[in-house]
């Protein structure tokens, strides 16, 4: 645990559900290894929702895939550690990883259709999870397994607020709308009672009114089943509404992590500031938002020093020379920026 994360309040005494430290991942592109994640660190406590934000290519999804041991073939871990409930994940055998994926971590992705089997009914797909993990049915109490699996599948659909679950359980995925499919995928994630749910842009493909339904479902599940959630999104509005803490990534590194209120009230890293300013809001007046100049650098050709410096309005000579160190600014807040080095904190 880094000194910075240790400070994040009383909860630090409990073993975090997830603790990533100094995770570096490389990708093979055009015959050479390039650094895609650079010493990423984040911690999630039980019952906490951590928002992981950044633009595409910032490394959010690669971080998520690393946790589940699902990195693509052209990626390798170059260093660091990922602990789930205190247990190291990196270096585990495929068998052990399978067990982990079955019970500890559940992933929900953007496009539900690609994660549902088109030729099985919803009920058959959920029941399959019980078949593969018979211990989930321990509470069956003498009832035949198959019937119990079916009954619990219906309960799982009820939990994610699917109307008329007794009928939906008999349906095939194509008979359901995108929103309903996403609820089914969430239900399938929850029946395994995982320690951690990773949700990667799960509402991006949905209509806005349906997105609102899924977001209020997540808010509700947070209370009812004390969901521990790694919420990956590019939408600062979703983060503001659901997350307890936020980790901002840029070009493979964590640039700032903080609790959500502090970040939105006083972002410290210039990228966090810029990202918040790009968020257009609707209010009585006109919508305002300020674009960030330039674009995220290609991983194959990153700028020297701080990777944000070519786009940073506050960059000075240090920024192009040296990578900034992570600084623990206030309790629970870590920023990687030269502006705050040597205690030169300006408010």
């Amino acid at each position, binding site marked *: 645990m880094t000194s910075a994360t240790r400070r994040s309040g009383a909860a630090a005494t409990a073993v975090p559900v997830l603790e990533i430290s100094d995770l570096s991942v490389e990708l093979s592109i055009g015959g050479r290894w390039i650094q895609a994640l650079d010493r990423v660190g984040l911690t999630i406590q039980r019952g906490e929702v951590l928002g992981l934000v950044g633009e595409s290519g910032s490394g959010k999804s690669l971080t998520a895939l690393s946790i589940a041991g699902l990195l693509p073939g052209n990626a390798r871990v170059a260093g660091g550690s990922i602990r789930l409930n205190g247990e190291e994940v990196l270096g585990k055998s495929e068998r052990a990883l399978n067990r982990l994926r079955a019970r500890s971590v559940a992933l929900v992705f953007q496009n539900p259709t690609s994660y549902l089997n088109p030729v099985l009914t919803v009920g058959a797909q959920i029941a399959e999870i019980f078949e593969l993990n018979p211990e989930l049915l321990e509470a069956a109490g003498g009832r035949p397994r198959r019937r119990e699996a079916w009954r619990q599948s219906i309960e799982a659909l009820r939990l994610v607020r699917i109307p008329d679950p007794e009928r939906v359980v008999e349906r095939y995925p194509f008979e359901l709308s995108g929103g309903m499919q996403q609820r089914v995928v969430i239900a399938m994630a929850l029946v395994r009672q995982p320690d951690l749910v990773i949700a990667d842009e799960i509402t991006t493909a949905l209509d806005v009114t349906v997105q609102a339904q899924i977001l209020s479902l997540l808010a509700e599940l947070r209370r009812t089943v004390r969901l521990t959630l790694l919420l990956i999104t*590019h939408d*600062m509005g979703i983060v503001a509404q659901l997350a307890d803490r936020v980790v901002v990534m840029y070009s493979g590194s964590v640039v700032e992590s903080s609790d959500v209120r502090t970040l939105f009230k006083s972002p410290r890293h210039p990228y966090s500031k810029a990202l918040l300013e790009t968020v*257009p809001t609707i209010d009585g007046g006109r919508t305002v938002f300020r*674009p960030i100049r330039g674009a995220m650098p290609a991983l194959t050709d990153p700028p020297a020093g701080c990777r944000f410096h070519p786009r940073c309005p506050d960059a000075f000579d240090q920024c192009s020379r040296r990578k900034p160190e992570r600084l623990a600014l206030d309790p629970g807040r870590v920023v990687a920026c030269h502006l705050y080095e040597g205690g030169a904190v300006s408010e």
Partner: protein
Amino acid sequence: MSDDLVRLDGVAKHFPVGGSFFGRTAARVKAVDGVSFGIREGQTFGLVGESGCGKSTIAMLLVKLLEPTAGRLTFERADLARLDRGAMKDFRRRVQIVFQDPYGSLDPRQTMLKALIEPLFTLKVVADRAAAVARAERALEMVGLDREVLKRLPHELSGGQRQRLVVARALAVGPRFVILDEPTSSVDVSLQAQILSLLAELKRGQGLTYLLISHNLVVIRYMSDVVAVMYLGKIVEMASSEELFTRPLHPYTVALISAIPVPDPEASTIAALAKGDVPSPVNVPSGCRYHSRCPYAQTVCREQEPPLRELRAGHYGACHFPGVAASAVPYRPES
């Protein structure tokens, strides 16, 4: 109104679906089902709605990639159904469209130079290659791209560059009216802001008129002067942007506005005011087509379709109980 640059009058587009090998179609999707509005010169007209509402079909009708089943579309007072060959060529030049996916709008084996100059020859905007290249370079400059991209292939550009390029290609022919169909839904948030300010700037500089189509209310709010909200093929509400967003009268508009997660952790705002999902456009609900999702629906809503009528000055709505959802509006006009 006569001073509208673009007008739609009772426009409908129905598509046959299903049906047997022997002809008779089983059903018709009423993708657009009687839509009328006008766009004034210099305006940005925002068309917003969820999937299946018919907003993209309207775009296709306006560029004549589809022909309407009923109704009339006019551009510069000329009926689009009656353009002769010469007028047609002129129309193709004066009306341009930018689609959602810039990657799909570019030939993967064509350099950017070719992509930019080909329409200039097809539409006879220029006579020779030198003039075409000069025009292409000017268009690149307008969208803030370096002329170095001319040699590149689509896959060698970033998402933001590709989006700028398709905008440059649309503008190179010198249009008067540009349809923007989800122009930023394929780019990142920081780029979205860039592209939208670019589009706003180009509109002022080139004296353009826009039809902006988006599912994103924030984008619509930022760009538009007038906004129409569509639901299952019909306009349910239409007003000036300011009026619509501060005093929405249709429960669907209220649901759309309150569905946007507000980027402020202190404001708890996730409100799912529309029930269930958008119904299939094959089976449009009876009466008010929104009634199946509307928390305020009464018997009359299931039985009678409310007409689009002027509820306040310049503010049109199709609802039996306009303003019923007012208390759910997240932003009050006077606060």
